[in-house]
């Protein structure tokens, strides 16, 4: 377990600047999720922590030790890749024990530690199979087993669930959160899926174009987004971000209100509109409305609401849940 500190870290590929200047502190034992759209530099940052990419400038510290120029295996990290990156010619047992074999640990110790990792991940019956004989979820578990067996100070995950189907992804999310609770190790997790970020992290770092937009606890980011980008990125369906008169009237450049913070009535309200499409999810109803004066709005209503395309509705933003993003970068919540 260790604290990870990035001090003014920079990354350039030739003349392209991917990460201009980034500083971040990842607390010991935290589950930190780096999240952002494709090409925002989150994977590059993770690879720089792993030592798979050189750092163009700045300093990387793991557990108080400067590892900026250190080889990946000397950093006390383990990494789980998107494609699992299992060695296809080795059995599960050999895959998990490979790092120990390279470290020339005694055979008995390798056996015990591999079996211990397999026990944690319920891989016992699969130890003598080759990766091609495993399902996607089992492969992912082996990849995690390979990380666990090294007793790393920091676990790095590079979009580990994106190759799994939706049901398995949900299951693995829970398993990873449980694993974090069990091991108590520092984990850094990269994803572009904000649901993964919200459900697993105790610290979320939102990135765009190599710059941290905001970092903090998931609910903090949800309730108090620092700018329209963060506001739009966190939350599903995404926040309604309205420009134009509705914002100008309140001396803001963007007026933000989450779909779940809009009240709907057929009698009266602030904005009038017509339902364009409604998604009935059972537990929720997501309604897409063309509203007069403000344009397209998304509204999320609890439970099954009998709205259909063409239904006229009135909408009112809940007070206390409106985010006004000012030109000077400040945010007011009214």
């Amino acid at each position, binding site marked *: 377990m260790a604290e990870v500190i990035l001090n003014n870290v920079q990354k350039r590929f030739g003349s392209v600047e991917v990460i201009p200047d980034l500083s971040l502190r990842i607390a010991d034992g935290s589950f930190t999720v780096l999240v952002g759209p494709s090409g925002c530099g989150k994977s590059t940052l993770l690879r720089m922590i*792993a*030592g*798979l990419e050189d750092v163009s400038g700045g300093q990387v510290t793991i557990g108080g030790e400067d590892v900026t120029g250190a*080889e*990946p*295996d000397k950093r006390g*990290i*383990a*990494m789980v*890749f*998107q*494609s699992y*990156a*299992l*060695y*296809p*010619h080795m059995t599960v047992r050999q895959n998990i024990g*490979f*790092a120990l074999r*390279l*470290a020339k640990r005694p055979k008995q110790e390798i056996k015990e530690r591999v079996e211990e990792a397999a026990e944690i991940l319920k891989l016992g019956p699969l130890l003598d199979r080759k990766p091609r004989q495993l399902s996607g979820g089992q492969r992912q578990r082996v990849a995690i087993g*390979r990380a666990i067996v*090294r007793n790393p100070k920091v676990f790095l995950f590079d979009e580990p669930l994106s190759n799994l189907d939706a049901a398995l992804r949900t299951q693995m999310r829970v398993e990873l959160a449980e694993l974090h609770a069990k091991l108590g190790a520092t984990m850094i997790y990269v994803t572009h899926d904000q649901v993964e970020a919200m459900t697993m992290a105790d610290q979320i770092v939102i990135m765009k174009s190599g710059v941290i937009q905001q970092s903090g606890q998931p609910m903090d980011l949800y309730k108090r987004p620092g700018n329209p980008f963060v506001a739009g990125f966190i939350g599903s369906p995404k926040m309604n971000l309205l420009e134009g008169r509705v914002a100008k009237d309140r001396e803001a450049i963007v007026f933000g209100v989450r779909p779940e913070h809009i009240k709907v009535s057929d009698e009266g309200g602030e904005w009038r509109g017509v339902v364009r499409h409604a998604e009935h999810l059972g537990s929720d109803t997501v309604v897409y409305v063309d509203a007069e004066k403000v344009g397209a709005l998304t509204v999320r209503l609890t439970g099954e609401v009998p709205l259909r395309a063409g239904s006229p509705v009135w909408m009112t933003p809940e007070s206390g849940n409106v985010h006004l993003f000012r030109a000077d970068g400040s945010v007011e919540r009214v």
Partner: protein
Amino acid sequence: MLVSEGVAAAPPRESAFQRMMANGQLKMVLIFVPPAILIFTVFVILPMIQAGLFSPYKWSGYGPVPWALNEDTGRTFGRWIGTTNFERMMSHSAFKQSLVNTLLVIGVSIAIQLPLAMTLALMIYRSSRINTVFRLIFFLPYVMAEVATGLIFSFVLDGNYGLSRSFADLMGWEKAFFPLAEKPWAFYCILGVIVWKYFGFHMMIFIAGLQSISSEVLEAAKIDGAKTLQSVFLIKLPLLWPSITISVFYAVLGGLQVFDLVMPMTAGGPSNSSHTLVSYLYNFGFIRLNIGFGSAVGVFLFVVGVAFAFLYRNTVQRGQ
């Protein structure tokens, strides 16, 4: 017996032939397959059968077939001699030498050419401009015609005006050095040219194999603590095994067929010391008008080639 009404009878199952007719596959098969079968039969199957039929005859090649009657002499063109051609071949010192030489070609290909190709492939498989230039340079010898390559090296190794002359001058030797005319040197020169000419081909096979290895697997190995050589021997080479088996297959079958390089360089000399099986066949079968004998050598080559291919594919390459 009650038959429920209103249940539609299952449509009759289409046969594979009907399916092919319907989707146009049959037309394609009829257009493309007969020419291929015809060409393969005329140029491969028939000559193989002929060689098998000619091999028990002493026949100079005159007349349509050895067993046809020559009306002028009242005898057949050839004479049935049973297994004599094979016995002669087996006891012929030049044949034994050519067999040893062919085995040498195969040995050198596997022991020197493939490791050389692998080393270079490991050095230049990553995509970069300079690596592309090196790949082109190393592959160039393979593109050249064999006879042209042989001729070029016969000039290079000429004691009067080739590099061999410069080498002899450099060493201060008084006598001219003709390595292709020296028994201890001639075949080793051919071996050197074979390695030079074909390593690029194997290098390309290995490069293709290396490029198909996932970079994440190699990075995972790096994080696990694998150093460069450990990554080569524990990850890259095992994952390249299918490419290696293909390369060995080509090296062995190619080694059995070496001919075009030998003819312009040494023509099998001096004193039949640098023949390969095929150049031996050509010299002692066709040049000396012993078609029956040449056919016997051909049958031997065929049997060795087929036996190797069959065994190799059913053992080493099994399951690939």
